[in-house]
């Protein structure tokens, strides 16, 4: 079933998409060189970038008519640099549900999410003590706890070594499949794309060149 549909979409002179459909419940990887327009494309889906022309629908509804804040609680995006606030791991993973004005998560739920992203640390750990890869996984656990319809993940595992990256992505995507959620991943890693994606989209110079 169609979740997103893009028709004659243009963003400034940066991105042009004639037509693109994203199916519900699938994992789609977006690959391409840096500056090709991958992030630009994804940011159109949560209205972080305004359309210059064209139309995008989400669940059949014109995106422009959906309240942007409500949309972003349904279509959650993980920024490329992990967003961490001063405090503990637990306080940080709670930030997502707090921002989205949802109920806070229990210690058990947090522990389970941290386990899914292969993070064997205590919730009371200060995030300042974490490595780059650990910070990325805290950010990933946070969006998992938000339990949205759609995940837009911008290079979610770029700081991890290939072995850990595979382990984390496998567990994360098993969980999202179980929940029948849709995932879009921007990745530099062809391996990740080929191993986990139901579909791979290649973006080059602001256009979709391979689908």
């Amino acid at each position, binding site marked *: 079933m169609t979740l997103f549909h893009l028709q004659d979409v243009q963003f400034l002179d940066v991105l042009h998409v004639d037509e693109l459909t994203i199916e519900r419940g699938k994992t789609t990887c977006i690959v391409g060189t840096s500056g090709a327009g991958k992030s630009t494309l994804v940011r159109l889906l949560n209205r972080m970038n305004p359309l210059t022309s064209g139309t995008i629908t989400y669940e059949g509804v014109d995106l422009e008519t959906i309240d942007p804040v409500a949309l972003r609680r349904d279509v959650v995006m993980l920024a490329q*640099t992990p967003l961490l606030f001063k405090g503990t791991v637990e306080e940080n993973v709670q930030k997502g549900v707090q921002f*989205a004005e949802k109920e806070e998560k229990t210690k058990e739920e947090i522990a389970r999410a941290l386990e899914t992203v292969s993070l064997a640390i205590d919730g009371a750990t200060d995030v300042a003590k974490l490595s780059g890869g650990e910070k990325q996984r805290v950010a990933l656990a946070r969006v998992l706890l938000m339990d949205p319809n759609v995940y837009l993940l911008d290079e979610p595992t770029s700081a991890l070594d290939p072995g850990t990256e595979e382990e984390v992505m496998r567990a994360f995507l098993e969980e999202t499949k179980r929940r029948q959620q849709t995932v879009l991943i921007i990745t530099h890693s062809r391996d990740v794309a080929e191993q986990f994606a139901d579909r791979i989209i290649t973006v080059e110079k602001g256009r979709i060149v391979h689908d």
Partner: protein
Amino acid sequence: MIDIELWRMLAAYGFVVLVLFIFQWRGIARKTQLIVATLRMTIQLMIAGYVLAYIFEHPHPLVVVGVVLGMVAFAIGTIYRRLDGPLSLRLKRVIALSMASGSILALVYFLGVVLHVTPWFEPRYVLPIAGMMIGNAMTGVTLGMQSLMTAMDESRDTIEGSLMLGATPERAVKPYVDRAFDAAVLPTLNSFIGMGIVFLPGLMTGQIIAGANPVTAIQYQIVTMLGVLGGVAMSVILATQLGYRTYFSKDARLLRPDER
């Protein structure tokens, strides 16, 4: 009160000559600046003195209101000049609106309720108090806006990252808006603490020299300080609350600098 004779008045400029000598001796290139500043101060105050004397002798509500509005306009212009970085038209409007409504509302309350001045436009009370309240609100708004503008530029990634997680713009910038308010009000709070111990403020000094009972002078000083705090707080809360909105589009996006 002692009337200062002309030659004694000139004797006070001896202090300027002393500083000029120090500049010359230490090779500090500030002599022209000091001379210009001294001349400006002298001329501006002389003009102000004659203008005030005229207004006090011929009090008229329109003139008093005109002078107060002139002070507000001057304060707004000063804020624009003092702030670093480009100011969007929207932000300029917010600053003008908050500065004018915040300080004037506080002034009206102060004159009407606290001092209960009659007639309401009595320039002897209205003008000095308006000057203090508007001047302090100006400093507060400058500090608050500088803090907010810096944070909004330096924290783009954090703000956008929060929006992507479903935060409202208000929630995403809350720490920066709160910090800006704090930065603006803190100097006024700190001035409360040293008051009467470290220094006797200008208003009180003036009244005491003019022969007022120190206890009366202190009463005036206390209520004026409180009024100043109110004027600062009202202008700054308006400026920060309306100011952060100029950084967002209607569809809750953080605007690029060229879009503001």
